[in-house]
């Protein structure tokens, strides 16, 4: 037993401890209150905030990309469709050391270091967090299998099936339909991030580019619940995407192929237009390329080969090729002459083989150095006499020449719906003063009158000008779209789906018979014995109105003669030919340019005729009934 004195100590100790316990109890109570206050703050005061955080954690909105609209030719043949394709995607956030994972992919699939560089670039371009970024497309069965076997080494890497654009007709429509390609950084900045969420491709050129908005469709959404690792657990809400509109083009696959065949393996361009509507029936720029290469990202080597090829397959000659129109514009100049009253049908010019301005030494040569003697308009067009047109151009002056030719679409964008069309150049006094800081010289008017000099036109402009002559001045912008789903281009504009582009005013001549006169002269080119293209015209079972032309590639100096043997093949003249048929009721207007083809009537004219034949003739070798001209008025008149 403890001693009493110790007991007293214990009493004191017990009191001390009891006091400390009371203090502790108070402190514990207060600290517990702090905890409750903290929980109250989080769970009641900040409830909204944390609730939202937790929901955002849980619910992810996944975009469902819309299937891109299909593209058909005018007969319903498919030109662009979507095919399932397997691509390899990587999600940076799930891959951990993603650079190392990329190394592993390259190793597993035995790819090259260039691919590795490309992969890294693609991943760095990746958009939102936790979004899988495709790095490699069109996986083969073997590649898919290799990835599957090595999956354990490839965190965050998945094989993803998606629809990818495919062009079954490959190079036939590369320059008209164009192609889609991966969205690049510059485009990403301009695009609506909501609309293009989940879409990896966008139209880069051609119809694909111009009608991107129609083709793309509307993105759909899926609200999914995901766990912290991003795995989808269930779908909460689903909104279907609206597929893009299917486009039916005015192009005709058969005519396109016929035009290409007519051009053969020469470089050049062919445009065929229905003059009554502006529908472009064929659009050939040769050589072409396979647009499928661009869809999933063209390899560096392939691209370099296309880009550096001397034949320039990527160059759209129809829309961007700029050539002096040469004699093909003579009918237009003739119309200007008639309409202004500067000349009439009987006006004649004596051609000694050259033309001289008063008091000027310089001789403006006719192509026929010997001269054609007295020529009137009909002879001047059918013989393509330069002297007559030097004289006519001189009488018209550059201002009136500029006015008329511009109205025919020279020097301006004529198309309704083509991407990247070049303007060309129709020179004028103002233009020369502004660009060259020089006055206009009368001699420049002369060579403008025969389509040389500063003037530059695209094959499309030539076709359009020809179609205008065929259609007696009634303007229809050349277009590629026939309808989108069931909507006509006019309805699309009315619904605000496509921006309206004003049509130039129709060309009204003082006397509408001028059209027939010039058309008749153009028919002489084909069908009179002295016509420059009578060899081609002789073989036609219908009447063609046409005009040849040559576009100089290198200037021939004064007094020098064009000598083909001296010129490098690539420096030879471009051969041009324009025409429409049947001349009495035109159904097709064609412009052909053959690069370095030299002879408009010899090389380009047969191409024009073959295209017309392909369009107009039935299997029996006669005009298709729907293209039959009404009653051959001229014949009646002669009888």
């Amino acid at each position, binding site marked *: 037993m403890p001693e009493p004195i110790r007991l007293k100590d214990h*009493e004191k100790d017990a009191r001390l401890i009891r006091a400390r316990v009371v203090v502790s109890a108070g402190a514990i109570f207060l600290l*517990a209150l702090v905890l409750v206050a903290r929980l109250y703050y*989080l769970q009641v005061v900040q409830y909204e905030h*944390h609730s939202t*955080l937790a929901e955002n*954690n849980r619910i992810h909105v996944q975009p469902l990309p819309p299937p891109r609209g299909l593209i058909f030719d005018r007969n319903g043949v498919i030109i662009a469709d979507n095919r399932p394709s397997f691509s390899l995607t990587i999600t940076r956030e799930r891959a951990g050391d993603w650079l190392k994972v990329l190394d592993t992919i390259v190793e597993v699939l035995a790819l090259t270091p260039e691919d590795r560089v490309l992969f890294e670039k693609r991943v760095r371009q990746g958009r939102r967090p936790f979004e899988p970024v495709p790095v490699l497309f069109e996986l083969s069965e073997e590649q898919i299998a290799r990835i599957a076997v090595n999956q354990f080494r490839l965190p965050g890497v998945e094989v993803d099936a998606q629809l990818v654009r495919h062009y079954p007709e490959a190079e036939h429509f590369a320059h008209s339909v164009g192609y889609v390609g991966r969205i690049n950084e510059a485009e990403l900045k301009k695009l609506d991030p909501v609309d293009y969420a989940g879409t990896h491709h966008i139209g880069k050129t051609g119809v694909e580019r111009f009608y991107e908005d129609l083709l793309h469709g509307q993105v759909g959404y899926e609200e999914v619940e995901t*766990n912290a690792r991003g795995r989808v*657990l269930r779908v909460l809400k689903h909104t279907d995407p609206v597929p893009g509109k299917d486009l039916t083009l005015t192009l005709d696959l058969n005519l396109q192929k016929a035009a290409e065949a007519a051009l053969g393996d020469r470089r050049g361009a062919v445009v065929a237009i229905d003059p009554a509507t502006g529908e472009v029936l064929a659009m050939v720029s040769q050589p072409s390329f396979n647009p499928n290469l661009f869809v999933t990202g063209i390899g560096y080597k392939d691209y370099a080969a296309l880009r550096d090829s001397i034949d320039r397959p990527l160059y759209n000659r129809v829309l961007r090729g700029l050539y002096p129109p040469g004699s093909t514009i003579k009918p237009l100049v003739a119309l200007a002459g008639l309409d202004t009253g500067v000349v009439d049908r009987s006006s004649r010019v004596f051609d000694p083989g050259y033309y001289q301005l008063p008091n000027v030494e310089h001789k403006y040569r006719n192509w026929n150095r010997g001269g054609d003697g007295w020529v009137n308009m009909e002879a001047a067009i059918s013989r393509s006499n330069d002297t007559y047109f030097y004289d006519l151009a001189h009488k018209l002056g550059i201002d009136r020449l500029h006015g008329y030719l511009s109205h025919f679409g020279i020097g301006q964008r004529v198309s309704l719906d083509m991407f990247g069309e070049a303007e060309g150049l129709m020179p004028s006094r103002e233009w020369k003063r502004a660009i060259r800081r020089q006055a206009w010289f009368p001699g420049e008017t002369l060579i403008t009158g025969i389509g040389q000099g500063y003037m530059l036109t695209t094959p499309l402009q030539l076709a359009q000008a020809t179609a205008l002559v065929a259609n007696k001045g009634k303007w229809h912008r050349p277009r590629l779209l026939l309808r989108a789903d069931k909507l006509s281009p006019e309805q699309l504009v009315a619904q605000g789906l496509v921006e309206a582009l004003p049509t130039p005013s129709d060309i009204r001549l003082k006397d509408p018979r001028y059209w027939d006169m010039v058309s008749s002269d153009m028919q002489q080119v084909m069908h009179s014995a002295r016509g420059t293209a009578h060899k081609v015209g002789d073989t036609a079972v219908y009447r063609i109105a046409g005009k040849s032309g040559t576009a100089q590639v290198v200037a021939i100096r004064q007094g020098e003669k064009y000598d083909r043997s001296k010129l490098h093949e690539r420096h030879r003249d471009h051969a041009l030919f324009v025409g429409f048929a049947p001349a009495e009721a035109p159904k097709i207007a064609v412009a052909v340019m053959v690069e370095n083809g030299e002879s408009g009537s010899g090389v380009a004219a047969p191409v024009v005729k073959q295209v017309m034949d392909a369009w107009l003739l039935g299997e029996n070798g006669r005009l298709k009934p729907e293209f039959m001209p009404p009653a051959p008025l001229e014949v009646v008149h002669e009888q």
Partner: protein
Amino acid sequence: MNSNFDRTLSREDVLRRRSSLLQRLHIDGPLLLLLLLLACGSLFVLYSASGKDVDLLLKQASSFGLGMASMLLIAQVEPRFMARWVPLGYVCGVLLLLVVEVMGHNAMGATRWINIPGVIRFQPSEFLKIIMPATIAWYLSRSSLPPSFKHTLVSLALIGVPCVLILRQPDLGTAVLILASGAFVLFVAGLRWLWIAGAAAAAVPVVVGMWYFVLHEYQKQRIHTFLDPESDPLGTGWNIIQSKAAIGSGGVFGKGWLLGTQSHLDFLPESHTDFIIAVLSEEFGLVGACLLLMVYLMLIARGLVITVQAQTLFGKLLAGGLTLTFFVYVFINIGMVSGLLPVVGVPLPFISYGGTSLVTLMSGFGVLMSIHTHRKWITKV
């Protein structure tokens, strides 16, 4: 006047207590009831937090069984007997820590375990959680209170040695708890307020020194993250942002059992161990969390009653130290999960999954029971 030490009981009292089965088994009824309540609650919450993992539940249940057994076993030991063996236990504990220091088993970047494969795998630091307050209680109970300056210094040295060893493992959480368990005994023993204030003032340079010389990079990182979790939302700040979102999104009544999205969709890290209070708060709301806190406070209240009613100085000091340390467990865990305190690895007592801490805690309560049920009854004749 009514000190419990010399409290005398009526004959009926004595008879009633003697005859009580619980008394004979040296079990304290209120403590047992509250602990069983917590055990049930724990299994309930764990089922949800672990993603309906029944295996894990069975393991935890068996840990409860083991803990219960060790509690009851310890409750049978007389406090006097304990006091006798405490110094030896302390020496053994420190030696084991040294063994860990030299050849411990490394798990998750920290050397905390002694692993004799096939035989035993345990953390000596857990053992010290009970031995430490017992040692200080034993040391201080040998002389009269309040502790003199010399006794205080010796106590601090006794506390300091194992704390430094544990800090070197490194395990900041356990070191803090063991430091607290020893310090609380000193506090309950009546450490002078002036000295406490002095120590607090001196702590400032010590903390600064710790920051530069003692704390490991990952520990500093935790403190950085604590001060500004949003600075690294996907890295180290992730845990705390997600646990706050879990707690906050629970609201007043919670999302319902098994319906917590943060834990079930794996946004919440360590959801069945250190961060389980976030699961409970998400699914049962403020109401659930407050109910749990109330159970804890009742346990602590019972512990303080036992402290006051203990008959021996050793018993009083040990009971007080253990009870206050228990509250520190609760406070640090809930504080860290709710973003009040930096993240240190302290589990939520009885609720978090983990056998070791459970057995340690139950053993502590076994000591409390022993202190309370081994009182000598002096009957008035």
